């Protein structure tokens, strides 16, 4: 009698454990693909970079950051979107060119060159950068982002991403 009860108890315990284990396996079977699925686009390869033509070098006035606007095609999810890229190009000697993003390194607003003050100004939180893009005052944590540049046949190119997965 006592033995029977003990075996019924161990049977019950076994079924409990088995049910919990199978349940946990099924839950993991849902949870693992779900997490992969949710964070998947983040894990995708880094954006492909290409040389983007900005325009003729003779548009750049030496000593003054000159704004170039170009539209690039970007693959975002299932959409191929055109995006306008604004780039400040600076040259001091007409031979070496540097290109800066107009995106404030603080929180992503767009900066504007103010000729009178000789500085870049961000209207969102009063971030100020100098001509080379270094931080003068305000909250920005680092200088304006620079693009690699090259000049070919009098055209300026920057190296930028066109695919954001």
């Amino acid at each position, binding site marked *: 009698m006592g033995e029977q009860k003990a075996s019924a108890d161990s049977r019950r315990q076994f079924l409990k454990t088995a049910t919990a284990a199978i349940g946990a396996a099924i839950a993991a079977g849902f949870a693992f693909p*779900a997490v*992969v*699925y*949710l964070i998947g*686009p983040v894990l995708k390869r880094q954006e492909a970079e290409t040389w983007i033509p900005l325009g003729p070098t003779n548009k750049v006035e030496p000593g003054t950051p000159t704004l170039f606007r170009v539209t690039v095609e970007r693959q975002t*999810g*299932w*959409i191929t979107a055109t995006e306008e890229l604004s780039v400040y190009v600076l040259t001091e000697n007409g031979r070496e060119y540097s290109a800066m993003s107009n995106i404030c390194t603080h929180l992503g607003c767009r900066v504007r060159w103010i000729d009178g003050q000789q500085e870049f100004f961000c209207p969102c939180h009063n971030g100020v950068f100098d001509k080379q893009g270094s931080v003068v005052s305000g909250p920005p944590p680092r200088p304006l982002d620079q693009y690699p540049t090259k000049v070919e046949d009098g055209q300026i190119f920057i190296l930028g991403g066109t695919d954001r*997965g």
Partner: protein
Amino acid sequence: MASQFGNWLDERLGWRSVWDTIFLRQIPKVNWLYTLGSATLFVSLNQLITGILLTIYYVPTPDHAYDSVTYITTQVPAGWLIRGLHHWGASAMVVLAVLHMIRVILYGAYKYPREITWFSGVALLLVTLGFGFTGYLLPWDQKAFWATTVGTEIAGVTPVIGQTLVRILRGGPELSAVTLARFFGVHVWVLPASLTLLLLLHMYLVIRHGISAVPGRRE
């Protein structure tokens, strides 16, 4: 430790009696056919989880529906799996629900006092078929488009109000962005809400009455 925490919670929530009522019910000697209802419930949970995940990327407009589904299937990691589970789960849910109902019919389990359980089950089947019908349009491919064209056209044979019904279903004279949007809204809001309410009633009644025994030879 765990049992101490269980006691602490039980004093405040009384969850043990709820747990016992749901999972430690007395049941007659039954067979595997009695698992068909639980199987249907399990598949509906699968549909809920995978359906919620699909809405993370799916966009119900003619411009984006097909492309976003393609994106899910080919670009998102495990997207093929999530969509596949939802796709096959949909068929499985209908099949299992029908098998469950056949078992209930053959065993006479719909009889007093379980009539309301049966009626709520019939309503659940209709909701499930509604899920199938509205979900079929969402990929917005040729098959979806023409199947829904035909499917909604069938409502047109209703006497007197037929053409009005078709226009209501489609949100206009023809399948359009409006149709896709309303099918999506019904698929992810109206039907899940209905299913939840009906399911609560159905489960409450199953627990309240207990399950019926396999009928004997002379019954």
